[in-house]
Each structure stands twice: as C-alpha cells, then as structure tokens.
C-alpha cells in the first residue's frame, strides 16, 4: 500500500468515483483489502494516458516513482492475471474514454469535483473528499455500505468498479462526467417516484396520510420546474380525489372547546389539515399564475379544480383567477378557462348555481374593465348558460310544453328553453300549486337550494348576462358612430374592432325570450342602428354582412317572442335584408346566417305586405341568378314559401298585361331601389325562372320549374306545394361538398348510335396541322450532311482516344511488369539463398 500511496498521493486529485452511482459489493471490497496485487490489470490500460493524467492532475509528482511503479506492476500483473479476470475485462472498458480525452480534461476535472461535492453533501455523506489517504478506503467502504442499504442496486455494470485506487483516479475523471448527467436524472427520478408514492398513499388512505399533503406541498418549492409541475399535478389529482362532497366549515372556537369524541377529533383534524393544505396549494397556484413559465400549469390546475370541485371552499378565489384568464392571448390557457367556465354553467347541480352567478358577474366586470376589448371566447361561454324556467314544476307539464314548442318552432341550437310569454302565466299558476310537493321532492333528492332561491339566483344571473350584452351593444353603437367616418379600408375587417359583437348577438338571439320588456325598446333601437343601411353603400358600416344579418335575426327573434307586447315596426329590418342580399359574398360571409335570416324574416312569422312580398320575391329570384347553388337554393325555397303565403303574388309568374294595376305607387319595376316597398316589383315578371330551369344543378332547375307551375294551379290545391324544407336545410343540402359527392354514371352514350371513330379534328385547325409538317428538304439535307461530318469527327475522336487509352494503359502496365520481375528475381534469389 505504501507503494501505491506514493503514486496517488497528489492532494488536489479529484475525488474518487461517482459515489452514488457506483455500487460495490462487499466481496469486492474485501477482495481489494486482501489482495494488494490487484494492480495487475493496470497493464492492460493505456499507461501513457494514465501517466499523462496523473501528471496533469497531480501536478509535479515525480515521474521516476511512477515509472518504477509501473514497471513493478507489470511484472506483478503477469502473476496475478488470473485472479482478476473479470475486472480486467470490465475496467478497460470503463477507462476507454480516457484515451480520447485531451487537454481540456483538466477543467472538467475541477468542475466534476465541485458538482460531485454538492451531490455528496446532499446525500449526507460527511467525508472530506479532498483528503485522500489510506484511511479513506475504509471510510469509503462505510459510506458505500450505507448507500447500499438505502437503495437497490441499479448500476450493475459499475459493480466491479472499486478496487484500485490508482484506477480510480481515471475513473473519477471518466465517471464524473457521466455522473453529473446521471445524478440530475437520478435525482429527478427519485423525486418523481417519491411524489408518486406519497400520492398513492394519500389516495389509498387519506385519513391516515393526510399529513403527507404538506410534504407534497414542500416539493412544489423545488428549484426544478419540472418537479414543481409534477408536484402541482399530483396534488391536483389528490385533491380532486379526496375533497369531500361538501363545504368544510372549520369549527368555531366555541365548538373547539367542547369535548368531543375521538372520531370527531380525528375528523376535525383531518378536515382542518385538508383545508389548510388546500389553501396553501391555492395560494401557491395563484402565485405561480403570475410566473409566465408556470402559468399554464397553474391555470390548468385551477381550471380542473373548478371543474371538479366547484362546491368546495375558496371557489371564489379560483373563479377570479380563471375568469381573469378567460380572455388570455394564450390559446391553451383561454381554452382551459373557457371550458372550466362552461362546465360551471352546465353542471349547476354541483354548486347550486351560485358559482354561475359569480362567474357571470366576474365576466361582466371584465367586460367593463376592458371596454369590450376581449377575446370573443369570453362572451361565447355565456351561450352555454341554461335558464330553467321550469323550476319547481312537475315534470309532466314541462314535457308537454316542450313538445308543443317543438312542434311550433325548432331552434337550431337545440335548446328547449324558449318560452312564449303567454305561457308564463299559466306556468306560474301551476308553479304555485305544486310548489310544496316539488320542493319536498327536490329536498329529498339533492342538497340544492330550494327553487325559490334558485329562481332568485337565476334572475340575478340573467340580469348580469344582459348587462354584459347591452354593454357590448352600447359600446358597438358608440364606436360605430365614431367610426363611421374612418377609413374605408377597414370595411372588410370591421368585426375586428368589435370582437365581442358576434358572440353577443348570438347570445341575444339565444336568450331573446328572456329579455325584459323594459329593455326591448332600447335593444331594438340599438340593433336597428347596428344593422343600419345607408344609401351610400356599405362603406359607412363597419360591421360585416354576417353581423348585420345577425342583428336582423336577433331583432326578429326578440320580436317574435314578444309580439303582443310590442308594436315596433320591423320595416327597417326588411329594408336592410333587401339590400344586404346584394352585399352578401359567398365564402366571405356565412351563408348559414343568410339562410337563417331568410327563414326567420321571410318564411316564418306573420303575413307580409304584398308589395314587400313581391319585392322580396323578385329580388330573391334575381339573387339566385347570380349566386352559387347553395345560396340560390335557399333563396328559391324562401321564394316558394312567399308565393305560397301570398297568393296574389303569383301574378308575378304570369306575363299579364294587367299586372301593373296592382303595382300601386310605382308602376314600373325599379331593380335598384333600396326600399322594397318602392320597388314596384308587383309589376314585374319572374323571367329569371326561365333561365333558372337551365341551371346546371338539377335540383335548382326542377325547383324553378315547380315554382313556375304554381301560378297555373288552383289556389285551393296549393297545399300540395307545402314543403317542409327550410332555407337553412336547403342551403346545407346543396353545399359544395354535397354537390361533389353525387354519384356519376359509368358510361357515355354517344348521340351517334353506332360506335365509330371520330376522324375530324375537334379543336385544331387541320390545315394548320398539315402545313406545319412541311419541311424544307434542302435544309434537311444540309443538316444531314452536317450531322455526318460531325459524327465523323466524333468517331475519329473516339477512335483516337481509344487508342490513346490503350497505349497509356500498356505503358502503365510496364511498371507492374517491372515490379513483378523484381519480385520474381527476389524470390529466386531467396530460394537460392534458402538452398
């Protein structure tokens, strides 16, 4: 050992091998202790590189000593080789990278040392790494043993490692590098496993292990962001699972003073721990939400908590954060928040509706604060709200109402909450009657607040929702007025300045039946202004065609639900629709909105004024001449509806000289009039239909044909034509995709019966073709001669090259020949010598 020490002594040598990565069996250590000749396998190592490293690391260690040492070892190795067979095989492999290391190594060694020291400290090993002495071996042994007891063997490959201190130096360098990577990874994995273990324990038995929550929480303070994320996520999973289905109320002081049973104590402890940890957890999340790097995770946790346990304590805090992020520019965050909010709206049973109200209130605040400059999604969520007017009503009656409603008007969004105001009264009567028994039922089934409470909550929510909508509308009209003078270029992007208008209109359309009559007048005024059409074209209206159509639709929806109560002239909206038909552009505007507008404004509702009906009929016919099949089909369906309802308008189908008598004010049709009442359409004839029968799309041409034949049929028989298709349906049915997927037949039948080849040219001019074929023969002859000459030269060239190559190769062969000759001579001389 003394020998060895001389060699290894350099005090500033790096510490030995990566401790936590290397597993050494006791046998090995013992073996090392007993066999000092182990050094044998050094012979197989690259001694040069070892020398180099030793010198470099150890500084000015005497070379002589080393040389001596090496020599002795080599001799010894011859004897000892057998004993260390397996080590011999392993160690060189481990040491291999040493050969490739160059001067840079020095730095690395220092680095490794440091990092290793850190890890070692973490592992609570108290050794002083820098002190390398004989004593060290034993210390090391001890430490290794401790380690081993703590973890299971993972690095089999390294098992053989320990042995030689001399080799260790090498290993230190090699392995230190590997170790750094591994240690980080290892640590990460360890922590991960720990997280999982704690989590599992908690899930298995939350009562017993509730304290572990704190430990988990501690993990979330880790420096490593990944660990933090994992910690947050596992806490989320745990909380989602163990949070009880009720709100925890911490005992008051009075209650605390009371003596209670052990079980209650335990329960109290459990609850308070849970609540405290939850609080801490939320605090952490809320804090992290402010850090950009962790925001996504934090929001994800908050959103899923809101989704899973909206009834639990501290919901308000979560909601606040979630709503704050509902208009986040980050798509994922926004989506998470929107979905969480939607789930709040949709699963009111979970929290009894309180959260809904809170959320809506918060959204309203947001809208107010940001002056309507939010992402459309944040308003979109409101459309998943449901307002149950049947609270406290027996199921049977509610169902009966639903069926009735379905028969009358089908709403596209499938909501069955539309209510006619006339039904409200009867409903309220029955509500009073059956309240008692229903409340009893409710109470027995759920913990939800009684219906009166719910009703109150709903009306509050509703008013908050309409507050939002009206605010947006107001803002839109204001900015509309202020923007009407601005640049025309913004026309096509008009909606971008009013991001919330579209979802707002959609929502208004959906909840139109719930609007308070007091607001109605203002609302209609707003809508009229927004949909406003001016004679100077579209330029002055920053709203897109779809949005304006939507305004009309909303207005009609609202009106239809409150027909009796209001007497507002909708004429303006008809004027707008009449003109918007010209503004509509396929692919830019939503065709479905147009179809819906046609349906609501023209197909449904009461009878139209004849002038107006005629004007629309004419315009729709003209419209279908210019637009694609889907739009045309929707228009034709509407046209048919109008004709059915307004039998007098069927005069348009006939070229009747007396048609003009009906026309009233304007006797001649004015196609570019902006007011349908002034267009004089009654005096026109629907010539369009004759062209439409030539339409390539067979359904349109047959539709046009069937419309044409309506005029001649006895009005009494007109029932035959009652088609159930709505414009919207017609629009969807003839969309391009549907058109493309029509089947086609497999063969073409020639109009000329017998199959014969068509010898005539169909496209090209045969004379031109023939003329193009004339070639100047002299020119060709000249070119042929040229060709010959060129080819002759080329052939000559080839021949010469061939020969040249041939000769050259022959000459080059001469050298080979000479070599062979020499060899032969040598061989013969050798043989002669051998003899």
């Amino acid at each position: 050992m003394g020998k060895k020490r001389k060699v290894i002594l350099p005090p500033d040598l790096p510490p030995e091998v990566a401790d936590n990565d290397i597993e050494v069996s006791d046998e090995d250590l013992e073996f090392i202790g007993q066999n000092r000749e182990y050094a044998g396998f050094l012979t197989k190592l690259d001694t040069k590189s070892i020398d180099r490293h030793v010198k470099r690391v150890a500084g000015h260690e005497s070379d002589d000593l080393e040389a001596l040492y090496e020599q002795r070892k080599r001799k010894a190795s011859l004897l000892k080789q057998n004993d260390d067979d397996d080590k011999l095989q392993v160690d060189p492999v481990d040491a291999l990278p040493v050969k490739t290391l160059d001067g840079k190594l020095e730095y690395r060694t220092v680095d490794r040392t440091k990092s290793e020291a850190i890890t070692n400290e973490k592992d609570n090993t108290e050794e002083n790494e820098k002190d390398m002495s004989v004593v060290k071996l034993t210390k090391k042994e001890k430490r290794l043993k401790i380690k081993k007891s703590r973890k299971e063997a993972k690095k089999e490959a390294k098992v053989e490692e320990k042995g030689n201190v001399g080799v260790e130096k090498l290993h230190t360098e090699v392995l230190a590098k590997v170790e750094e990577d591994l240690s980080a990874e290892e640590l990460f994995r360890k922590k991960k496993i720990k997280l999982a273990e704690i989590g599992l324990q908690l899930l298995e038995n939350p009562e017993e292990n509730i304290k572990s929550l704190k430990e988990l929480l501690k993990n979330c303070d880790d420096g490593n962001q990944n660990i933090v994320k994992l910690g947050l996520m596992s806490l989320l999973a745990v909380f989602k699972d163990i949070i009880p289905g009720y709100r925890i109320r911490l005992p008051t002081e009075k209650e605390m003073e009371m003596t209670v049973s052990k079980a209650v104590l335990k329960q109290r402890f459990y609850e308070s721990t849970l609540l405290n940890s939850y609080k801490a957890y939320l605090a952490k999340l809320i804090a992290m939400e402010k850090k950009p790097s962790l925001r996504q995770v934090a929001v994800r946790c908050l959103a899923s908590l809101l989704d899973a346990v909206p009834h639990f304590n501290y919901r308000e805090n979560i909601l606040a954060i979630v709503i704050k992020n509902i208009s986040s520019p980050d798509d994922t965050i926004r989506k998470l928040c929107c979905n969480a909010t939607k789930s709040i709206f949709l699963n009111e049973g979970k929290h009894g509706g309180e959260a809904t109200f809170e959320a809506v209130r918060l959204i309203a605040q947001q809208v107010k604060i940001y002056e309507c400059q939010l992402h459309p999604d944040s308003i979109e969520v409101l459309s998943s709200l449901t307002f149950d007017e049947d609270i406290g009503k027996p199921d049977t009656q509610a169902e009966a109402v639903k069926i009735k409603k379905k028969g009358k008007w089908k709403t596209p969004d499938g909501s069955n909450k539309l209510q006619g105001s006339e039904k409200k009264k009867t409903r309220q009567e029955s509500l009073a009657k059956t309240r008692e028994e229903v409340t009893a039922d409710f109470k027995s089934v759920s913990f939800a607040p009684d219906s009166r409470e719910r009703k109150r909550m709903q009306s509050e929510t509703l008013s908050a929702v309409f507050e939002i909508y009206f605010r947006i509308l107001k803002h839109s009209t204001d900015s509309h007025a202020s923007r009407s003078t601005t640049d025309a270029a913004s026309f096509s992007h008009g909606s971008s300045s009013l991001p919330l208008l579209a979802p707002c209109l959609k929502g208004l359309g959906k909840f139109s039946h719930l609007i308070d009559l007091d607001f109605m007048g203002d609302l209609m005024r707003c809508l009229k202004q927004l949909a406003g059409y001016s004679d100077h074209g579209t330029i002055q209206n920053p709203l897109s065609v779809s949005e304006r159509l939507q305004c009309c639709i909303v207005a009609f929806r609202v009106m239809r639900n409150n027909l009796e109560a209001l007497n507002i002239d909708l004429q303006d909206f008809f004027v707008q629709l009449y003109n918007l038909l010209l503004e509509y552009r396929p692919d830019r505007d939503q065709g479905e909105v147009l179809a819906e507008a046609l349906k609501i404004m023209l197909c449904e509702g009461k009878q139209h004024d004849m002038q107006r009906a005629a004007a629309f009929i004419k315009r729709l016919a003209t419209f279908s001449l210019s637009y694609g099949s889907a739009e045309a089909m929707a228009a034709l369906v509407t046209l048919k509806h109008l004709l059915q309802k307004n039998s007098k308008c069927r005069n348009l189908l006939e070229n009747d000289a007396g048609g003009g008598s009906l026309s009233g004010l304007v006797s001649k049709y004015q196609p570019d009039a902006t007011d349908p009442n002034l267009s004089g359409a009654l005096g026109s004839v629907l010539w369009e239909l004759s062209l439409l029968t030539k339409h390539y799309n067979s359904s349109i041409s047959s539709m046009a044909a069937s419309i044409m034949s309506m005029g001649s049929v006895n009005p009494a028989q007109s029932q035959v034509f009652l088609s159930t298709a709505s414009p919207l349906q017609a629009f969807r049915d003839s969309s391009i995709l549907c058109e493309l997927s029509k089947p086609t037949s497999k063969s073409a039948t020639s109009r000329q019966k017998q199959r014969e080849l068509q010898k005539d040219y169909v496209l090209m001019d045969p004379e031109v073709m023939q003329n193009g074929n004339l070639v100047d023969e002299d020119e060709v002859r000249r070119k042929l001669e040229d060709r010959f000459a060129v080819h002759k030269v080329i052939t000559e060239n080839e021949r010469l090259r061939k020969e040249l190559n041939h000769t050259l190769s022959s000459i080059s062969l001469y050298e080979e020949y000479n070599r062979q000759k020499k060899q032969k001579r040598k061989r013969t001389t050798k043989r002669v010598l051998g003899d």
Partner: protein
Amino acid sequence: MAKKMGRRARKFAKKNLQSVMKRKRKLNALFQKKFAPRRAQSDSPEESKNLKNDMQTPVDPEQEILDGIVSTNPFGDLFIKEDDDSAADASDSDGYLSEDPECPYISEDEEESCPEEMCKDVVLLEQNTEINQRLKNQKRKLSKLCKKDPQFSKFLESRRSEFLKSKSEEIYSDDEGDTSSMDDEYIVGNEISQVSKVITSSTVDVWCWLVMEQPNWPGLANLLNAFRAACHYGLDTGEVSPVKIANREVFCKILTFVLSEAKRIFCGLLRISGFSNKETILKMKNKPEWKTTRSLIKSFLRSSLFLLNQETDNQILVFVLSQIRLSILLFSAFPSLTKKLIKISIHLWVTGDKDLSASSFLILRDIASEFSLDNIDTCLTKGFGAFIANSKFMKPQNIEHIEFLENSVVELYSLDIQKSYQKVLMSVQQLASILRLALKTKEKDELKKIHSWQYINCISLWVKFVSCNYKNHDLEQLLFLIIGVIKGIAHLFPGPRYLPLRFKCVKMLNQLSFSSGVFIPVESLLFDCLEIRGTNNAEGTKLKHLDLALLLKVPNQLLKSQDFQQASVLSAIKLLAEHLSQWCYHVSFPDLATIPLILLKRFHENTSIESVRRPVKRFIDQVQQNSDFIQRKRDEVSFSPKDKESVDSFLQLEKCDRSVAFTKFYDNMLQNALA
C-alpha cells in the same frame, strides 16, 4: 430455322473464331470506356438518353418522369401502367439483312479525304489533332519499351487476354437471351469476317435507280443495310457494319431516298396501291409476298426508329417523322415497334419545338385512330401522363406549348369517346376526391395539391374535352362533376390572393356553359374583386405587365398594388362580359344583369383607380343598353316564363344574326384582347 441458324452461327464463332470474338470483346470493352469523354461533350439530354438506351440500362429518363408523377402526383398516376418496354427492346435485337451478293458495287475512290471540310466544330478538330499527337508520342514510348524488354510485350499480351476473358464471361451470360429472341432475323453468321464494303455515291445512284425501276430487285436488302448503317452512323455498337459510307453525300442520299421512297418501294413489293386503312394491312399479311418483305420492312422501320431516337436536330426529326407517317400503317404489323414509336413520339411531342411537336402529335393521332385498341390505350395513357408531367410550371415561354399539348390530348381523347370516357371520368373523379379531402380537412398539403398548375391544367384539359364533345355525346354526368369540382376550387380559395385562380375557374365555367348551354351562375365569384381596396399608388412598384394568366396566387407585395387591382377589375369585366354575352338574347337578361349593374355602378362611383373607370363605364353602358333592349322586346311579348318554347324562341332571329350591340361589343372586346 432462322433462330437455329443464328444460334449455330454464334456457337461456331465461339468455338472457332476465337480471335474474332476477342476482337469483338475488346471493342465492347473499349466502347464502354469511350463514353466518358463522349458524355462530357454531349450535354443535350436527348443524346444521353439515347446512349443510355443503347446500353440497355434499365432506367429510362422518360420512365423516370412518369414514375415521378406517380409518386408526386396523385392524379397523374391515373392510367400509367408499368411499361415493360425494356423487354421488348431486348427482343428487338437489331441486325443486318443478308445481302444480295450480286449487287453492284461501283468502287470509286472518292473516300472523303478531308472530313474536316464541312465540320464546323473547330474545338473537336483541334482536340483530335492534339490527341493524335499525344497518341503518337505514347506509341513511340511503348514501342521503345517493348524493344527494350521483349519479355514485356509478352507480358502485355497475357494481361490483356486475361482481362478479356473475365469480360467475356459477363457478355456471354447476357448473350444467351439475345440468341433465343433473334427470330426472323437473317443474321449473317460470318458478317464479321466480311470486309465492309464501301458505298460510293455512284453506287447509291445505281441502287436507287434499280430500286425504282424493278420493285423486286434483290439488292434492296443492301440498300436497307446501307440505310441502317447510316442511321447508326457515329454510334457503332461494337459490331462491324458490312457497309461503309463513303462521304456525306452518300449518307444524305441514302437517308432521304429511303425515307421518302419507302412507301412506294414497299407498296410495289407487296403489290398494293397504298396503305389506306387497317384492312389493307390485314390483307397484306396474308399475301405470299409478305414473307419476303417482312424482314425488309422491319429493318427499315427499326432503322428509322433508331434514327429518331438518335437525332437531335428538330428539322431532321420533323422530316423523318413526316416520312414515317406516310407509311405508318406498316408499324401495325409490329406491335413492339409500335410501342417504341409511341414512346419516341410522345417524348418528341412533349419536348420538341412547335413543328416537331406537331408532327409527332400527328403520328400519335394516326396510331390512335388507325391502330388496334391496345395502342390507342397506350397513346391516351402516355399522352396524358406526359402532359401532366410537363404542365407543372407555366411560364410565358411555354404557355403556348402547353396549350398545344392540351389541345393534342383533347384531340386524342376525342377520337374514341366511348373508350376515353372511362378514363376521363376516372381522372375527374380522382380530382374530385382530392378536392373533397381538401374541403374536409383544409390541410395545407391537400390545399397545395389543388393549388398547383398540374391540378388546374388537368381540370382545364377535361373542360376542353367536355366542351369539344358535349354536342355529340352524352357527357352530362361528366359535365356536372367538373362543374362541381371547379366550383369547389373557387370556394376553397377565397380572398383576393387567389383571384387569378378564381378567374381561371370562371373562365372554365363560362367555357362549359357556352358549349353545353346550361346556365352556370358565375357572377358572384367576380364581385369580390370590385371590393379590393389597396393603398393607392403604393410603393411605386410599377410592373410592366401583370399577366394574371401566369399566376395562381398573387404575390404578397403585389396584392396592394394598383396594377393588380386594375388587372383584376379588367379581367373580371371581361369574364362578366363573356358570361353575359352568352345570355344576351335571353329573355331574362335584364334580371341577370341587375345585380352586376348595381354593384358596378357603385364601384364606378367609388373607385379611386382612374384607369379602370372608362372601361367599366363603357361596360355598364353596354349592359344597360342591352338590358333595355331586351326589356322593350319582352314587354311586347305575351307569353309567360313557363312557356318554355316561346322563351326559347325569343329573339332567336337576332341571335343568329349576332346583330345586337352587346354581341358586337363583346366581339370587339375579344379582338382587342387578341391584338
């Protein structure tokens, strides 16, 4: 019999004519070497292709192109099958005919003393002399070495024979296939031992005269051999030809004479008046003369094909093609040669200049119309494939060529509608399914497929096909499918960036509507461009001429430019005029024009581009005028819209006269566009 002879001769040669074989092999070996310098000189792709063909490399550039389409182009792979021409090539081993020994040879010492006299390639000449110099030096050196060491020459000899032995093994393994396939070829076993005869110009004159005088003159074989040699001139494949062409006049004379007189010669031999149709060929096959003429004809055709393959000059090619075309029916007796001819013609049709393209198209058309169904199929498939492969890019230079190709494909497909309908339908359905996928997924890759010249050209090809043949055939289904596809394309690419593409769609729709008489509304597709508003006089990037026909998508920097707006408005007006002109006699014209008029008037009021004001105003006036005219006319009539016959007969008289002002306006517009 012939087969046996060929094989026996070969065996004999193998056994007894060792030295000859050796020489042959040597030549073969060196032949491969010589290509290195050769290829460097010939940079034209055609020549290198021919070289490759000659060496029977399996990869053939044309095939590669087709393969390329198959892989890159989902709609190009329609009916391109794996074509196994390589097998046919192999079986078509070419050989000389057995000659008439009696044939007169007038020897005359007119061997060209100075081949350089006509050659303009000075570089090559210089190179030749230089190499010659070097060769002399090296030879001197070698002989010195040999002299110095006599044993070396022996060594050299042994090395060379060793080398050749290894080479020959390879060659023989190849040759086995050849020998078996040499049917009906009178291979002259001892051709190699023959000293090649020199053909002088007087010999050729005599031969020509004899051939013209006596149809059955046996020396025709010699003439054809000479023709073959001429065709192969400059590209000897190692075999020694029995004839040697003395000078360029002889070369020229042989080629032009044989090519231009072939029809007459063979007609005379077969005693028929001409190759008017397929039946004569069938009849001819049964004639006793056929047996003797068959090999002669084959040799002629094969040599001509070889020439076609080899030649690079367009005019010579046109000449050869036009001469071959006269006797094209001869090909129908040789299916494998027909296949080759199709391949070559398609290649020339696609790559050649205007005349060459036209004459190769004529060949293709003849084959498609006269030959068996099998060949029509090949023509259609390959023609379409080649068109697709060549329509990837549109440039000002090739726009005409692509149009010609498109027209030619339409011509080919129109020959037999029954047959081609399936193919066209399949192709259009494939296009439709690509479109469907794109409409559903809206993925970038799918959109890219559609937004490509290949797709658009393919569609426009079938649009042309349908509009050419709609009148005589029942193509309604196809028509509707194509309309659907075009509408889908227009729908898939909204926005001003894709206006050029949209204009193309509208143009195609107009074309279809015009030929089929169905009404296709296109107006709404054009309204968009009345609403583009850019920054006025932006950036001052004035382009000389913005040709929307060459674009599918407008580059971003042009999007806001006034040039683009102007160009798009004008194109829109043109297309609108096209659309309206079709219905300008229809009773509902005023209604059809209502919306465009309203929008155009508004545009005219608001536009800031002065340059388009005038044409727009003119257009509005014309449309208004016609609208008023129809309005007046229809106020006079008493029938109703549902009275179909009366509606159809409305203003038919004027329609025939084309007397209405709007028609004149439109015709004027077209002429202006052409000018």
